[in-house]
């Protein structure tokens, strides 16, 4: 909204109604270009502050002079940032003049100023906590501008020779690539602390903003490929646990996003039980129409189930998500049928995609289940002993290692060393997929009479 009397009216109404979302719309950069132009042209650098001060003073009854000053500053900086954004928009539309300037970097920097003005407002100028939506808007766009600035710099191949490089013993060109996003993470972390460490009573606290900012941070960490750094955020939120509002009191969207990220972090650390719990929460809370989000959750939840409970997704579930079906179905079929060699091939086939999604190492462990199913087939194929008088027939529990070896090399037609087969069998026994023992002297596996393959009914 351009800075005229209408602006003061809007601000004053939003302020008296304590409508954070309405107020946040006055600090958004997400406007059509002509609207931005109107804002930019409505004032000039010389008079903007006095204009804002007069207008806000006349229209809004601030409890505090500090607060007035704070808002004047926020809007003055916002106005300036709009100017930079316009420069960036104009020159990025204008392809042929690959300007020597990093316009988005400047837009990012101007927007950082806005974040700082806003944070100062919360820390020094007694901004009310319901206005936290403004902080959401500013933070969200800060991240967008940071990514644009990084893309711009990388595509133009700017050599950034910042003096700090001189002081290091080694250099790392990689760090420059996502320089602005890294800076953005630092800025967001400041915002996170301003929210998280507010000690006001809960109803007036900025702690309500913690999860929104935390989610932005988590997203950024993932983008930076440093999901491990997210631990700090999780720890900080955990440590402040009892002073925080109840997690269920936060907006559902924030809960789901947070649980998803928490789940994926646990997943990457192979803490599958915790990952399963978080992802299940996210799954249950996810909006029914958010197909993309549900697909993301399932991408990790399905491998989780494979590990924790050795269960495969039903075909009905996968039908709803064609991409997941393509991703998982071949593997699932091989596991189910105990086709060891085909499993290897399917894993190889999808390797690139699995690795990209960071699920390869988890899915690879599905081989154990495929192997278990194969061995189980060998066991059942041997049939039962002659039943004794009046007793239930019992399965033949003594299986030569050579039979297992034959089964394992059936698919690939490659001969396998008996010692290696024993090693695989030992693993099955050790991991609890199979009950029994190997007798090396006799080249025999002696399986348990009751439940040789736990959980499979034999």
């Amino acid at each position, binding site marked *: 909204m351009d800075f005229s009397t209408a602006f003061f009216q809007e601000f004053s109404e939003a302020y008296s109604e304590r409508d954070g979302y309405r107020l946040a719309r006055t600090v958004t950069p997400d406007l059509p270009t002509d609207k931005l132009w109107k804002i930019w042209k409505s004032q000039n*650098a010389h008079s903007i502050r006095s204009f804002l001060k007069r207008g806000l003073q006349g229209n809004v009854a601030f409890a505090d002079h500090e607060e007035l000053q704070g808002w004047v500053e926020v809007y003055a900086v916002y106005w300036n940032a709009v*100017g*930079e954004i316009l*420069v960036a928009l104009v020159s990025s539309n204008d392809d042929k003049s690959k300007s*020597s*300037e990093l316009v988005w970097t*400047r837009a990012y920097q101007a927007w950082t100023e806005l974040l700082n003005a806003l944070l100062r407002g919360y820390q020094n100028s007694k901004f009310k906590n319901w206005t936290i939506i403004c902080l959401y808007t500013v933070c969200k766009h800060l991240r967008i501008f940071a990514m644009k600035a990084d893309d711009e710099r990388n595509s133009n191949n700017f050599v950034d*020779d*910042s*003096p700090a*490089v*001189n*002081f*290091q*013993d*080694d*250099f*790392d*060109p*990689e760090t420059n690539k996502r320089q602005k996003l890294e800076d953005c993470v630092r800025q967001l972390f400041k915002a996170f602390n301003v929210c998280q460490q507010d000690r006001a009573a809960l109803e007036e606290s900025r702690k309500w903003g913690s999860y929104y900012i935390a989610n932005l941070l988590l997203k950024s960490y993932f983008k930076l*490929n440093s*999901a*491990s750094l997210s631990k700090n955020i999780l720890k900080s939120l955990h440590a402040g646990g009892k002073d925080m509002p109840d997690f269920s009191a936060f907006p559902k969207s924030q809960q789901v996003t947070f649980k998803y990220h928490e789940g994926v972090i646990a997943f*990457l*650390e*192979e803490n599958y039980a915790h990952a399963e719990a978080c992802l299940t929460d996210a799954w249950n809370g996810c909006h029914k129409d958010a197909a993309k989000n549900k697909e993301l959750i399932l991408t990790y939840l399905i491998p989780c189930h494979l590990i924790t409970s050795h269960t495969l997704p039903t075909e009905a579930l996968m039908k709803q998500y064609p991409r997941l079906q393509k991703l998982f179905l071949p593997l699932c079929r091989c596991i189910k049928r105990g086709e060891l060699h085909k499993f290897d091939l399917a894993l190889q086939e999808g390797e690139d995609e699995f*690795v*990209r999604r*960071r699920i*390869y*190492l988890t899915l*690879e*462990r599905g*081989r*154990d289940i495929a192997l278990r199913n194969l061995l189980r087939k060998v066991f059942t194929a041997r049939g039962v002993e002659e039943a004794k008088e009046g007793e239930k027939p019992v399965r033949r529990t003594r299986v030569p290692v050579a039979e297992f070896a034959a089964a394992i090399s059936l698919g690939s037609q490659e001969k396998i*060393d008996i*010692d*290696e087969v*024993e*090693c*695989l*069998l*030992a*693993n099955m*026994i*050790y*991991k609890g997929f199979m009950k029994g*023992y*190997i*007798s*090396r002297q006799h080249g025999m596996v*002696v399986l348990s009479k009751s439940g040789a393959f736990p959980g499979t009914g034999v």
Partner: protein
Amino acid sequence: MLPTWPAAPPSGAQSSTGYATSYSAPAYTAVQVRQSFGQSYSTPQPSYPLAHTYGPSHSPSPSAVDIARNVNLPPPAAASEPAKTKIDWPDSVRRYVQRAFIPANLDSSVTRAEMETKLKETITQANEKGVLNTLDWDMMPLPQHMIREERARALLTLQPKQPAQAQAPAHAPGTKKRKSWDLADGAAPTSSSATPYPWRNGPGRLEHRVSFSPDKRDEPLKQSSKFNRADKRLKRHEGEYTTQREETPPPLDGPVVGTCQNLEKRFLRLTAAPKPDQVRPPYILRQTLELLKKRWKKDQNYSYICDQFKSMRQDLTVQRVRDEFTVEVYEIHARIALEKGDLGEYNQCQTQLKALYKLGLKGKPNEFTAYRILYFIHTANRTELNNALADLTAAEKKDKAIKHALDVRSALALGNYHRFFQLYNDTPNMGAYLMDMFVGRERLAALCNICRAYKTDVPLRFVTEELYFESDLEAAQFILDHGGQELLQDRGGTVMFLTGKANNLFEGARAKAFSRVDIKGQI
């Protein structure tokens, strides 16, 4: 040869086949898989044949100047070289200089001193960038023109501007040049102007001493050392410096150009911008590397070598030298660190190497990618391992060393210790040094498996073979070390391992071995 390494061939012979293609004097020991577990890393390394290779060149005091003279590279501008040092300036450069001083081209507003400074700056820069021979000197703007342009630009910056454009000149192409000029000036103010350059030997030499500057704005230029200062003052006068100060960081932010001529230098962490006279330029560092390779072979003094390599890496970094030589330095340091089990230092090199290879520099990327994977297996860093896998291309996956590392990973992930120990016995390059670090814990894991799965007993020989112990004795020792006295039984000449009685004997040790992976400098 050490008695504990009976199978290893003489390492001198081995090393010459490994990497002989990349450099003449390899500075690492090629390694056979170490058959003995639990041997400490401080055991003396196999000695090298010395005399024939390094006899003459290893005199302890090769003076820096001697070496500099032997090198066929021109010295940097600021270095105080004896006048007779012959520098072979290309003809095109000579023509360029001559062209600048043709009377028709002279500009009355540009003093001779300014021209000479500019010339020196232009040529030195071209030399440092290594484009001396490739630049089209005939098309190069003359120094007087450059100076005039600079002045015009400086004037421009003085004019009032819209805030949105105020910083634009900071990105102008001219500024960078100026920075390095400042640097060269600040680096060696006296020696630089005292150095006689070839182009001063021409007919212009006398004039410049007497200085018939048609423009008398400056004080009489009696000492050549004042030329630069005067020039600077002139620029300041025109407002160039004031505008620049406001917009860019201090002028010293370009890469340093080293002038230090010592081969050896102790490593010190920088706390301020490095001084050029304490930084060795690349052509000296090349000498240093050769020296260090020899030293390493001769003395095997790791703390000395590591320190020297660190200072070398630092010198390269501050000068922003990122070329194949840089790669070589990091590769060699990484191999030496690996050999000595200094994982912290190794890891730093590895991180750098990854970045350097990414720049497209040649080296042994596959060898080090393989190490990288093995390293992440050792540190059990799932996230990084995932990232490393994601970075691999199809061609890399087929590389022998990388494929080996991937197979190791897969074998361990599936608990296939049989396969793992086969791979351990057949490790390319120096990967065995890395595998040595986790083979102990994998033996424990395998032992746990065996104890759970095999009933009553197995021959000790089976354990020896499956877990690649060098002898039954060593296998027995391993079992005894973990409290398995009760589990070994001599049965008519065959030692049996009573797996049935082991229960969970090795579980504690196994859990402990897997929990303790803490390495300094880990990413």
